[in-house]
């Protein structure tokens, strides 16, 4: 029962003032922790779509889904944890105080992991990486080995949608 793992959930909610507070309030009032949350409007401007990632056990997860389902503002809840989806998260990493050797290393990493270099001066490099949450985690870990204490990390949170044919998460 106590199967603690990473979960993803997609919520369709009323696009109205306070709905984000309501959803995040549900997490905090039950002492559940959110890893990431993203929100944006959909093709129907009265509806917003949220992707929330968090880590929990099965029992807590069931409770969270039920709590959402009974919220007046929530139109639909889709559990993305075990279904085929496409998932992306944008990640910016700024690395400062780079030597020539560092820069070479960073360019090599960028080449291998499909990372784009979007800004640059003689001492700093800005990387943009749009991958799944897990790959972004791994890239951060890799960069930290070498550039700890001179990295600035900005993560955008997960967005996801159901796969049509081939999944990628």
């Amino acid at each position, binding site marked *: 029962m106590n199967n603690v793992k990473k979960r993803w959930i997609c919520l369709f*909610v*009323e696009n*109205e*003032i*306070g709905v984000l*507070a*309501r959803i995040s*309030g549900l997490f905090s*009032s039950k002492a559940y922790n959110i890893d990431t949350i993203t929100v944006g409007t959909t093709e129907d401007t009265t509806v917003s779509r949220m992707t929330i990632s968090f880590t929990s056990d099965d*029992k807590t997860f*069931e*409770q969270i889904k*039920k*709590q959402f*389902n*009974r*919220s*007046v*503002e*929530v*139109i*639909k809840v889709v559990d993305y944890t075990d279904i085929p989806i496409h998932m992306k998260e944008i990640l910016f990493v700024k690395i400062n105080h780079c030597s020539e050797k560092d820069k070479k290393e960073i360019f090599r990493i960028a080449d291998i992991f499909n990372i784009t270099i979007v800004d640059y001066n003689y001492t700093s490099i800005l990387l943009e990486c749009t991958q799944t949450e897990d790959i972004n985690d791994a890239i951060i870990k890799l960069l930290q080995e070498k550039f700890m204490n001179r990295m600035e990390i900005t993560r955008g949170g997960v967005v996801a949608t159901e796969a049509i044919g081939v999944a990628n998460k």
Partner: protein
Amino acid sequence: MKISGAKLFVEALKKEKVDTLFAYPGGQTIDLFDALYGEKEINIILPRHEQALAHAADGYARSTGKVGVCLVTSGPGATNLVTGIATANYDSVPMVCFTGQVPTNLIGNDAFQEVDTIGIMRSVCKYAVTVRNREELGKIIKKAFFIARTGKPGVVVVDIPKDIQIALGSDVYPEKVSIRGYKPNTDVHPMQVKRVLAALKTAKKPVFLIGGGVNIAHANKELTKLVELTGIPVVTTIMGKGAIDTNHELYIGNIGIHGSYASNHAISECDVLFSIGTRFNDRITGKIETFAKNAKIIHVDIDTAAISRNIVVDIPLVGDAKKAINALLENAKPLNISEWVKQIQEWKKEYPIEMPKEVKGVSPQKIIEAINKVFDKNAIITTDVGQNQLWTTQFLELNSTKKMLTSGGLGTMGYGLPSAIGAKIGNPTKDVVSIAGDGGMQMNIQEMATAVVNELPMTLCVLNNGYLGNVRQWQEMFYNKQYSLTCLRYRKSCNQACSNPNKDCPPFIPDFIKLAESYGAKAIRVTKTEDIEKALKEAKKNKRVPTLIEFIIDREANVLPMVKPRKFFRQYYSRIQWKGR
């Protein structure tokens, strides 16, 4: 035709058949009150504090089954309402609370009497919304009443800025409302009904555990039928008390930390626990790992989120309690469980709940028993919170014409008096009795004025021990008898570390008799057990005026039996095992 928001508000209340409004005016609701001036179709009650106002609307709603409606101003009006809203929502009481708000162009500017009402209310109510434009007002009010009274009932807060109240707009109040994210389902799944019936068929030691959901669904008759048809004995939670006549031969009693031995034993020993409308609160389960350990658990609840939240349920049946019971009634069969029933009856006889015969002052048990006798039918009993509430739930008898209102979920002191006022206003022909302690009574004592000016004949019992008795009992039993801050007779000249009440203690403040009389109420002080009945009868006779009866009870009377905290139900303090009173 174009009308103001305030006019539409009044029309909306009438369309929703609101006959009583609990309201306290203020700067940001002055336009709404202006539109209510001279209104004949709505009885508008002015309590003396917004917390009590919400409790009064709550008592009105619980006792009539209608939606309780509140109207208060912004800022402090709204914040004072919070406790009342949380109390009602916790016990699934349908209420709609309107709060005034500063004009929309001032929202967020830290204006005078501005608070983020919706931000505050959101976590203690079912739904909360600010009206942001005049044309949405009608739709939002319609939605509010719909959400409050459907599904698992609850409190809806509608925050109306002052400019919306003034603005002219459509006079149309929608007939219907559809909310895409809110489709409460009350029908039960036939497959699950079959599973429940199959589990019952093989049960040797089944027991019903009935919660407040049955009372909310008004399924009392249906439940009684099902109990009589199957022969399964019934235990209730505090909120479920009265779901079946307490004198019914198959009724065992309340479970929980102050429940009866027989009830708690029945739950521990049963092989099928058939629960309806309860969320398995920690007060009833005790140590969760040992609760109904050997039983298959059936759980009927309208709220899917209540299923398997606190205990793992084997057969869930989601839906309205009345519909669920009716579906079961179609195919339920009598069970052959006479041995089991006999066993429970023996426990009940062997270990009754009773207080010691020899007591200092008036015996709380005798007070409740006298209330049973004097107010035997057509009565509503409200309780406050604490020992008074627990004694009431232990000894009060309820039947189909008698109801008990109590703050079971939130446990709000100060609930007793205002909820009784709401109940009396909603049920003028019924006798209304409130039972409170000296602590809780003082939390909303100002409502004596509301009771007097509205000419409400009610019986207001105060069980005075000069202590915050329930906490004092815990201090006596589990905190080395250190009565930390629980004595209400304490004076500056006393030793603060005193755990020794005696005849030289300073007098109780206030003098309830003089206080009641100053409000224009009648008052009686009872110091001897033999005078209880006489006082209650006299109070019952009084017309158009409330009567406060102050019962001077033993200062250190305890509520027993009591399950040891965080323990298995069998680990008990019975009256005999506990040497105190």
